[in-house]
């Protein structure tokens, strides 16, 4: 394991790999499209577009080939303001992905966006806080930003329009949004129009006038009288693409003017007819190339060669570009087909070369894989239906972890859900196993994993990447089945493999290492190997930042919080759990998410502090379904639920609730011990001391917190000697926290009290109070019984207990829930943000309103509210405001 963790903490670049601008595919999306050689600048449209700088929203709306994009690009290129350009990709752009790209476009344009605006990590959702922060930053700008979203019609998610409007509304004068689209956007345009806040350029205005047509044709080297141009405009309705094509077709013919006359008389659909004409005029090789590249979004000469199986793409593409026919340059010798032509060319491809499409996709996938473009490789391999190839590309790139984390996990999972049974390679089996395991389908996942492993062992070629992917899945299986041995073996195997795979792949996919270590740590924690677990989890929590590692980082941090809790350090556990949540929230993951262990730790801490309402709320909030089969979180949930029932006096229900209902390979010492404690305490509460003592046999000596609690129960059952023996047996390894020392001191104090040694008892209680006060650890005192009451009422102990523990200690015969609630704490300093929240609370604002007003997420407000409640020792808004007024905090 050491080597593996050494590597993980080694020199991995601090900036995550996801640098979208480094990829030519993506670079093209943020670049201002080039204007064609024969571009005609139309001043009337530029003048109209200049009004965009006076309105928040601008819509350029027209059919395909109406010249929207070139017009907007030409206008934007002449602006002095910073312009962020984003061309939407084909297919469904989900909110998380959309905003990640918008932020990237803004960063690429002038870099004034601060690091506080973090790209979302979930493809489907965007945190409102992120949008609010973004809007606030835009609002603060001196120079407004022009954001152009080209091909906005491709953005199909309805949430995006609503989110765009939110940002636009709150960004004030800092943002001018320009939507270039074929279809009416879902924003409430009528409202903007009525308020005079909308600049609109629609199809009628984009259409060429006869004079403009004459000028355009001149650029193509054709001179035409205005009268003839009128007829052409009639025929094409001033449609830019139609005019361009007719110019090209006319140039190919012997008598251009006559040709145009014939075209006017013809009654075919314009684009269809013209494109076929222009295509016909091209040499055979050019036609073939155009048809074949129509399956691609973007291409370079080499990629085109891979599809034609020739070597002449470079001169052909250069010539097409020079003639301004079909292709548009994207820079760095990448091109794209005009979307309209691409669509029609595909129709021609299907007719002329039927059945070739899958083969072309596969050739494209092969080329893209060789050149290192994984997402495009996967898309084309999927389009070709070659799942073995797709799975192989994913596994060889060490990207299998992306099925569990990262922005693309949803897309990937959905893509591979179309994989049929015909895919039989080991890599395909690995992908299937990963999908099963991520859906907690252990049985099928394990079968497929074993199957893949066997096949990998049989084959001999270069398989390090596949084996490393295997190790990741094994570690996950080890975690889910509660089998540390499996996880350890996987980690060991990974150790040996990391040197066999290319280092740059590991750097590119930090999530692989982070996930593996998290699973290993979780399995170790389950088995009670706390120190080893802490080592693995600490490394995972410190994994390089970025969207791909958000989930494993949060997961491992929450496990670390649980470790602290199990060792008896309430305050530390609480801080870590809160830090995990707030870090993930800052990284754009809506909360609560993941295994929910963080919430469970907070709930457990609340039970120990006797904040029962808060514990119940946290328990209800913790996400149930995803973590349901994870032994650690299932056991955690069962135990917190049981303890809560116990302190509410429902002993029988508590004993029943201890069973987490998951089957695991090995028993967990802490889970078993804690379950035994609850059952034993239930026996004691129902008056069966002997059975209670018997149950304590199940408590492991390795868990100091549990042993101390067991001693308290023994004492309660009347076995003083056994209690003291238990305490003497606690190995003080220095890791035990206040939960151990406070309990132990109270047990010894009670024993001393029974022996009549009040002075010792007083000294021990004093020590317990000092230890417990900082952590607000109330449970041991409430459990202790009546004997402690007179002690707490006398100086100097009364002062130590005052303010956080009840002034009058609870009586033994009382049910805990009837115990008086802890009195208000001494006024605790509220933090600045908490005070802000409280002030808004006093103005009767809702959580959402406060969130919007403070530019933070609703969850952050809730977190602040919770700590305000805690500090003021109240449970409701009204009480919080009242108490704050009483204490002159408002």
């Amino acid at each position: 394991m050491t080597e593996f963790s050494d590597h993980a903490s080694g020199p991995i670049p601090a900036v995550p790999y996801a640098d979208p601008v480094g990829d030519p595919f993506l670079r093209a999306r943020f670049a201002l499209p080039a204007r064609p050689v024969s571009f005609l600048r139309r001043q009337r449209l530029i003048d109209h577009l200049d009004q965009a700088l006076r309105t928040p929203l601008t819509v350029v709306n027209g059919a395909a080939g109406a010249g929207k994009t070139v017009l907007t690009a030409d206008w934007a290129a002449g602006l002095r303001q910073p312009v962020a350009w984003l061309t939407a990709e084909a297919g469904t752009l989900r909110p998380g992905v959309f905003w990640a790209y918008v932020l990237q476009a803004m960063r690429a344009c002038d870099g004034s966006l601060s690091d506080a605006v973090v790209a979302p990590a979930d493809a489907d959702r965007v945190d409102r806080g992120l949008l609010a922060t973004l809007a606030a930053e835009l609002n603060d700008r001196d120079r407004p930003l022009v954001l152009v979203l080209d091909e906005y019609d491709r953005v199909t998610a309805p949430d995006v329009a609503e989110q765009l409007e939110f940002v636009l509304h709150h960004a004030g004068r800092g943002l001018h949004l320009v939507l270039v689209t074929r279809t009416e956007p879902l924003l409430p345009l009528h409202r903007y129009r009525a308020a005079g806040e909308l600049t609109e350029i629609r199809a009628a205005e984009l259409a060429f006038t006869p004079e403009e047509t004459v000028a355009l044709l001149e650029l193509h080297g054709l001179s035409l009288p205005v009268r003839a141009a009128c007829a052409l405009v009639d025929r094409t309705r001033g449609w830019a693409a139609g005019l361009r094509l007719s110019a090209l077709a006319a140039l190919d013919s012997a008598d251009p003017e006559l040709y145009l006359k014939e075209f006017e008389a013809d009654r075919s659909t314009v684009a269809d007819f013209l494109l076929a004409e222009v295509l016909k005029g091209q040499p055979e090789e050019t036609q073939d190339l155009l048809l074949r590249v129509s399956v691609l979004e973007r291409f370079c000469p080499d990629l085109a060669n891979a599809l034609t199986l020739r070597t002449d793409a470079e001169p052909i593409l250069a010539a097409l570009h020079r003639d301004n026919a079909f292709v548009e340059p994207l820079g760095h010798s990448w091109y794209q087909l005009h979307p309209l032509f691409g669509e029609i060319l595909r129709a021609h491809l299907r007719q002329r070369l039927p059945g070739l499409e899958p083969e072309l996709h596969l050739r494209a996938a092969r080329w893209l894989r060789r050149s290192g473009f994984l997402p495009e490789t996967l898309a084309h391999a999927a389009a070709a239906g070659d799942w073995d190839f797709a799975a192989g590309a994913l596994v060889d790139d060490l990207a299998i972890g992306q099925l569990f984390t990262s922005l693309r996990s949803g897309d990937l999972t959905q893509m591979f859900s179309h994989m049929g049974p015909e895919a039989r390679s080991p890599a395909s089996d690995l992908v299937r196993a990963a999908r099963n395991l991520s859906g907690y389908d252990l049985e099928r996942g394990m079968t497929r994993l074993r199957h893949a492993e066997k096949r990998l062992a049989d084959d001999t070629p270069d398989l390090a990447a596949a084996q490393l992917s295997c190790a990741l899945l094994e570690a996950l299986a080890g975690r889910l089945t509660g089998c540390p041995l499996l996880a350890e073996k996987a980690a060991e195997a990974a150790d040996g493999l990391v040197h066999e795979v290319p280092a740059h792949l590991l750097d590119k996919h930090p999530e692989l290492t982070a996930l593996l270590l998290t699973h290993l740590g979780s399995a170790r924690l389950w088995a009670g190997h706390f120190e080893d677990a802490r080592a693995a989890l600490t490394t995972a929590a410190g994994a390089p930042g970025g969207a791909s590692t958000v989930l494993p980082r949060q997961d491992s941090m929450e496990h670390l919080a649980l470790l602290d809790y199990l060792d008896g350090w309430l305050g530390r556990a609480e801080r870590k759990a809160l830090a995990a949540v707030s870090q993930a929230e800052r990284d754009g993951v809506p909360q609560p998410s993941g295994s929910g262990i963080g919430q469970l730790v907070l709930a457990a801490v609340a039970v120990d502090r006797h904040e029962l309402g808060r514990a119940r709320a946290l328990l209800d909030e913790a996400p149930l379904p995803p973590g349901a089969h994870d032994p650690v979180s299932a056991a955690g949930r069962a135990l917190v639920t049981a303890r809560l029932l116990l302190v509410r006096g429902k002993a029988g229900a508590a004993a029943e609730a201890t069973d987490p209902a998951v089957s695991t390979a090995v028993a967990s010492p802490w889970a078993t011990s804690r379950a035994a404690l609850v059952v034993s305490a239930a026996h004691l509460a129902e008056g069966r001391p002997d059975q209670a003592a018997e149950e304590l046999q199940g408590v492991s000596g390795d868990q100091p917190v549990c042993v101390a609690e067991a001693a308290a129960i023994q004492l309660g059952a009347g076995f003083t000697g056994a209690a003291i023996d238990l305490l003497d047996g606690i190995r003080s390894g220095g890791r035990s926290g206040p939960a151990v020392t406070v309990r132990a001191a109270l047990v010894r104090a009670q024993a001393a009290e029974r022996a009549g040694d009040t002075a010792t008892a007083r000294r021990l209680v004093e020590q317990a109070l000092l230890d417990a006060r900082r952590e607000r650890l109330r449970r041991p005192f409430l459990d202790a019984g009546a004997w402690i009451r007179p002690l707490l009422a006398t100086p100097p102990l009364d002062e130590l207990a005052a303010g956080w523990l009840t002034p009058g200690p609870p009586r033994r015969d009382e049910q805990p829930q009837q115990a008086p609630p802890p009195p208000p704490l001494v006024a605790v300093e509220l933090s600045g943000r908490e005070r802000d929240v409280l002030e808004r609370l006093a103005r009767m604002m809702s959580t959402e309103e406060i969130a919007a007003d403070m530019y933070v997420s609703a969850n952050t407000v809730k977190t602040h509210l919770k700590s305000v409640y805690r500090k003021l020792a109240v449970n409701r808004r009204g009480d919080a405001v009242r108490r704050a007024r009483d204490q002159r905090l408002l």
Partner: protein
Amino acid sequence: MRYEIRVEGHLSETLAKAFPELGHVVMSGQTVLFGPVVDEAHLYGLLARCQSLGLRVMEMRQLPE
């Protein structure tokens, strides 16, 4: 549901293949595409397909069963 979609101009046989699920007939400067439409999603899909092929939709109506 059966629909007919009237687009401007004579559609070539090649482009008509972009609507394999529909029949087509060319008449007086227009092409009529007709046939069964599964649901609304299909209907909007057909409209989008017309748009991305640069076709101009003149009329679209549901046919009596």
